[in-house]
């Protein structure tokens, strides 16, 4: 297990290296000149030349990459061109705030999604099951930015329960913090819960029809034990895979939600940096997203092994 984890971490390092090259190359072909953006449209040729020299923009691309990559290895993410501040602490705060948003969301997605899925699988064909099905399709079909606007209009506008936008640190009081985070989380969670519950439902239904569940019933076990002990654990295996993929979807959603709710996280910072051609920030931001996604997949695979002994142990025992 440890060897496996280490092997996977080594893969992740390789993936990050390849991604760093792709990111670096992609940001180079973005249109527009950085020095021009920094200095504004009235800058003179000399001023532009000086900025370009200071930022090593005239070096060959591989030299620029090596400088950037060696900085990364030392933990130096570079300096934001627009804000003229080191990116490390800047992006660190943003990641933390996004992580809070994403972490709370994914927990809700997992807990509510699995619970709804199991509930409707066990009561398959009932009115509750059908209601959950219809609601799921509705939430899957409607995009996040639309939900964001609807919840703002409803809960911030008409009802006035929560602030429409912005962010409050936990130090400003738990209640204030919570009031700011509820609407973004609700928006993020809506589609993904539906996604996870649909999948859990079908995998649970399949498991409930399997021979070993019938065999468990034949032992005289009460239905709730059959579901908990025999069906659930096996039914969750595909759900875990999907949850890891959903982490990717969630990060896409976070960019949208942070922008709409003016939530100062990584997503909003990325959009801002792209608009401003602040290339070092874009590079560091995308690389962070890649790392998070890769680690989420590793976590899913480790969980997968926990639920599925065939992966944990080799085949064949002594005969």
């Amino acid at each position, binding site marked *: 297990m440890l060897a496996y984890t280490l092997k996977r971490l080594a893969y992740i390092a390789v993936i990050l290296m390849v991604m760093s090259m792709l990111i670096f190359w992609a940001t180079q072909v973005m249109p527009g000149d950085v020095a021009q953006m920094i200095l504004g449209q009235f800058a003179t040729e000399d001023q532009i030349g000086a900025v370009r020299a200071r930022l090593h923009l005239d070096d060959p691309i591989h030299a620029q990459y090596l400088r950037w990559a060696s900085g990364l290895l030392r933990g130096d993410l570079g300096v934001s061109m627009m804000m003229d501040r080191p990116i490390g602490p800047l992006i660190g705060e943003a990641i933390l705030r996004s992580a809070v948003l994403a972490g709370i969301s994914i927990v809700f997605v997992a807990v509510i999604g699995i619970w709804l899925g199991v509930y409707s699988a066990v009561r398959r064909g009932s009115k509750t099951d059908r209601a959950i099905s219809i609601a799921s399709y509705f939430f899957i079909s409607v995009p996040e930015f639309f939900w964001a606007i609807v919840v703002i209009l409803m809960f911030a506008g008409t009802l006035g329960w929560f602030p429409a936008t912005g962010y409050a640190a936990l130090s400003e009081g738990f209640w204030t913090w919570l009031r700011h985070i509820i609407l973004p989380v609700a928006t993020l969670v809506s589609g993904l819960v539906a996604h996870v519950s649909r999948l859990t439902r079908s995998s649970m239904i399949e498991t409930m029809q399997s*021979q*070993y569940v019938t065999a468990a019933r034949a032992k005289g076990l009460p239905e709730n034990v059959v579901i908990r002990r025999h069906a659930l654990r096996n039914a969750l295996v595909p759900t875990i895979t999907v949850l890891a993929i959903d982490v990717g979807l969630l990060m896409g959603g976070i960019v949208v939600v942070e922008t709409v709710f003016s939530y100062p996280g990584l997503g909003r910072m990325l959009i801002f940096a792209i608009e401003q051609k602040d290339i070092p920030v874009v590079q560091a931001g995308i690389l962070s997203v890649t790392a998070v996604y890769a680690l989420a997949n590793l976590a899913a695979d480790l969980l997968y092994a926990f639920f599925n002994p065939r992966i944990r142990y080799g085949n064949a025992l002594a005969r």
Partner: protein
Amino acid sequence: MSQPVLRLARLCVDYPAGDGWLGALEDVSFEVGAGRALGVVGESGSGKSTTALAVLGLLAPEARIAGGDILFKGASLFALPDAERRALRGNRISIVFQDPFASLNPSIPVGRQIAEPLALHKGLSDGAAGEEVRRLLAEVGIANPQQVALAYPHQLSGGMKQRALIATALACSPDLLVLDEPTTALDVTIEAQILDLLEKLRRDRGLSMLYITHNLGVVARICDDVCVLYAGRVVETGSAESVLRQPRHPYTKGLLASLPRVAERKHRLAPIPGRFPDLSAPPSGCIFHPRCHFAVDRCKTEPQVLDKDVRCWRAEELADAAWQAPAEQVDDAPVRVPAADGTPPLVNVDALTKEFRLGGMFNSSRVQAVDGVTLRVAPGEVLGLVGESGCGKSTLGRMLIGLIEPSAGTIGIDGGSQKENRRNAQIIFQNPDSSLNPRKTVEAIVGRPLVLHGLASGGDLRKRVVELLEMVRLSPAYLARYPHQLSGGEKQRVGIARAIATSPKFIVCDEAVSALDVSVQAYVLNVLADLRDRLNVAYLFISHDLSVIAHIADRIAVMYRGAIVEEGPVDDVLGPPFHPYTEALLSAIPDVERGSGVQRIRLRGDAVESGRHVRGCRFQHRCPRKIGAICESETPPVIEPSPGHRIACHIPLGN
């Protein structure tokens, strides 16, 4: 007489079908006496599994009890509240299901699964239950109970899993053990071991058993009484001895006549014609009359009742009448001219080897699925290839028709090129459900190879397809049908028509009849035998079932762990001298005639070892006649007791 443990009284069970109900069980009555074993026999759709589930109280929620009762020790099970019914399950009444591979929860250690009923019904603590589990595992013949209790299901072989499931069922010393086809998914030598175990448990524990099976041979071995189900109705019941030796109902007669047997081989079997009735609209009168040779007008109108243990009013007058082969096949069975000696073989296979890599990217191991096989098949000859699961027989068959690329060795079919081989060599697969494209009509399926090889087009195409369908005894009415509208036997016949479309000289039949019910299997076997006679096509007939092979083949090759261990003409292989493995296979077949009490040869262990064969005889680990160190160190020599009969074994002839 003491009270029966279980009594079904006129039980009727329906399933919803469209707007109405489908009668899965109609008026089913039987009883299992204390310490007795009742065999419930039937083909698919007969309602035998519904019977088992009804006894356990595990019918699907949509099923409806339309009438009758189930009495356990005299008390109605339907009258019990749910909680009390559940308290009986796994405690007083327990069950072993068909498929040991699917009946164990893959994510819970085996010992914990066996302990569940102990904790639930007996309130044993974890420690006490663990101890009891180890004792039970030892009782069902597991050599290392401690280790097996901690193992996960995927680490055990099929036979070990089934033993573990039997241990689970026995955990609370039930009064009634229900067995639903407990050996059907297992290899024949493992089946024999499990049947031995069940016999022993019956003796030791005085168990009452309800044994559900399609296999009449198993009934003869295990059961005192038998109850034959057809289309949800009991058609005949009585002692196993009398029903199997003197069947009274035409269906039972047909079932027995359909059975290929090693001991008495015939030119053709006498199958039951027609197809299984649609139970949502059953035929009027006797349910079996559309398929019965003995049916007269009265049978078509008068529903039959169980009278003197038979559901047939003509039973008495037909007492001595045997089930006959349908007329259609008697008149057109031409006498086959055997190939003259000296004809060059059609199929030449030399030192054929296939090595597979197992495992992932980092730790791979190699398995020699086929290891240096040399074979000859003469034109029009049927070579039967028998062996257990994992022995490499399907890999061999697939290499012969070019579906798998060999690692080494040569294949020659009639001296043709690979492209010609595609036309000259065809295959019939085991499972007609997955080998026919569900979105294509029968006409398109059978016509496809004709178009592909440019053998027919336009108006000729349909004419040729009709011809091919007639050869497998399907009428032109089938042209426009889709696979889901066909029965299992009909699907397999479409598969055969497709295989013969290119007029091949050689067909690989890969377990071609194994998925079919006995009566249907007999019909398909007859079709295959007819085709061989008419088209002079040669078959490599692959099967795990030695009785089927013995029936259809001219020569038999016995395969074990990738190599042929014995080969020769049918009579030579089926009679002594034997390779010890062939002897064990023959001895393992549960035979209708032999019944119980015959001394049998049993193999040690129960898995075909994986991995690479290194030294000595490949059969050394399981051989009951191992003679000594030579078996471990040297490759056995091939001895030839009679011309064409070869045995690879160290045991000297005359022993």
